[in-house]
């Protein structure tokens, strides 16, 4: 349970840092800060909902996935200069898939499976595209000193580490709740790792020279 709470409160660290660094941030970094605060608000709302109603907070998880995906897509749209048509296709396509996911079967109350796996595939692809861009442009001599590098590294580690969990959640759930909770700890650890990396990324935000 401690791990769950650490994972719940950990996003607060980069989120607070993003407020401190707000003035020094450029447009994609500010979008990222908005993402962090959205995550904090949704996570805490979900937890409060569960405490108040004693019901599952899975609907919040669906909203979390959609918002995370849309903001990250916009973030990469600026970084990779994605064409409007491709961006529109990825946005509308994913939103439709998301709607289908919540309108079929158990809907809001079922654990999201393919929608989360789809998000992971798209984000990992975008991260790899950014790494390729970095290698091609040869302008960043020390990537570990840049905000974008740490964000991409964090996303790659988080989504690849969680990939099996996102692809086979139903199988894990079918084996029993205890197994699911044990495996879910991996997600919590990766969450803590992700937000630690986000914190490092935010520490790399430097004051802009006007």
């Amino acid at each position, binding site marked *: 349970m401690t791990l769950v709470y650490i994972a719940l409160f950990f996003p607060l660290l980069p989120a607070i840092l993003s407020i401190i660094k707000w003035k020094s941030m450029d447009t994609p970094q500010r979008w990222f800060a908005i993402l962090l605060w959205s995550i904090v608000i949704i996570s805490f709302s979900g937890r409060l909902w569960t405490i108040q109603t004693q019901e599952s907070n899975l609907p919040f998880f669906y909203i979390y996935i959609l918002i995370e995906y849309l903001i990250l897509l916009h973030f990469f749209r600026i970084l990779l200069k994605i064409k409007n048509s491709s961006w529109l296709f990825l946005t509308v396509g994913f939103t439709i898939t998301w709607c289908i996911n919540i309108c079929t079967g158990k809907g809001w109350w079922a654990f999201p499976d393919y929608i989360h796996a789809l998000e992971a595939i798209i984000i990992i692809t975008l991260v790899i595209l950014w790494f390729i861009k*970095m*290698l091609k442009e*040869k302008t960043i*001599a020390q*990537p570990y000193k840049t905000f974008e590098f740490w964000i991409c590294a964090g996303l*790659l580690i988080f989504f*690849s*580490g969680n990939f*099996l969990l996102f692809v086979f959640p139903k199988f894990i759930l079918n084996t029993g709740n205890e197994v699911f909770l044990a*495996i879910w700890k991996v997600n919590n650890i990766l969450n803590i790792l992700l937000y630690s990396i986000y914190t490092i990324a935010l520490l790399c935000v430097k004051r802009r020279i006007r």
Partner: protein
Amino acid sequence: MREEENQIIFIFVVSAAFVVLLAILLVLFLVIYQKRIVTQENRLQKLENEKQQSLLKATIEGQERERKRLAKDLHDSIGSLLSGLSFNLKFQKNLKNQDQQQLVFLEEACKLVDEGIENIRIVSHNLIPSTLENFGLVSAIKECIVPLIQTNNLEINIQTSEEFPPLPLEISLGILRVFQELVQNTIKHAYASKIEVLLICTPDTISLEYTDNGKGFHINDIDLYGIGIKNMQSRIQALHGTFFIDSKVKKGFRAYLEVPIILKEDTHGQTH
């Protein structure tokens, strides 16, 4: 928990750990690879710059050599010819039994030839200022402004460091050429009445600050004055120096250059 469930947990956890490890290794590889290719790229860029620099230097040296040859040819061949002609005309003029018309004609011819000799002397002197080699940069600068003050109604103030160590000819010639170009620009475009020059020499660097009170120009219109400014930049770049210009409409013009003094063992004659 059953054995089977434990196995599932183990497989998932190990798989996740393995994938995370792979991702971390990929990121590490990217950092190292990126650093290596950027370092290599910078090294290539540096080599390219050095190549450009030596090309630039060779071009400027070639230009100076050609100027020197031209000045020598003008002085030695055409100058000598005109001196001979002048001598002959004067001899002819001093002969007795000449009518008045012939005398006027010879006098006029002598005057024209003397003017030609003087012009050739000035041109060849401008092409390769011997004052620079014999008396140094400050004297050469002061010498080259004398005719400009007289013909263009300009006030030129030159301030220099009290101590002026010997400079390699390459550096002093480069600075003199840039100064000449700046003055020419002021005369041609600026319609200025006053030029201020500050020439400072330290043991490591020599700097020149040049300002005029002319009409100035918008710094974005620099292309209109392009070739001259590019020439000056190239000359200073060839000397590993820095060159800045600044101007505003109706606020005059300012140029600043700084060149490191690299004393070579063979400086082809030092200047003072």
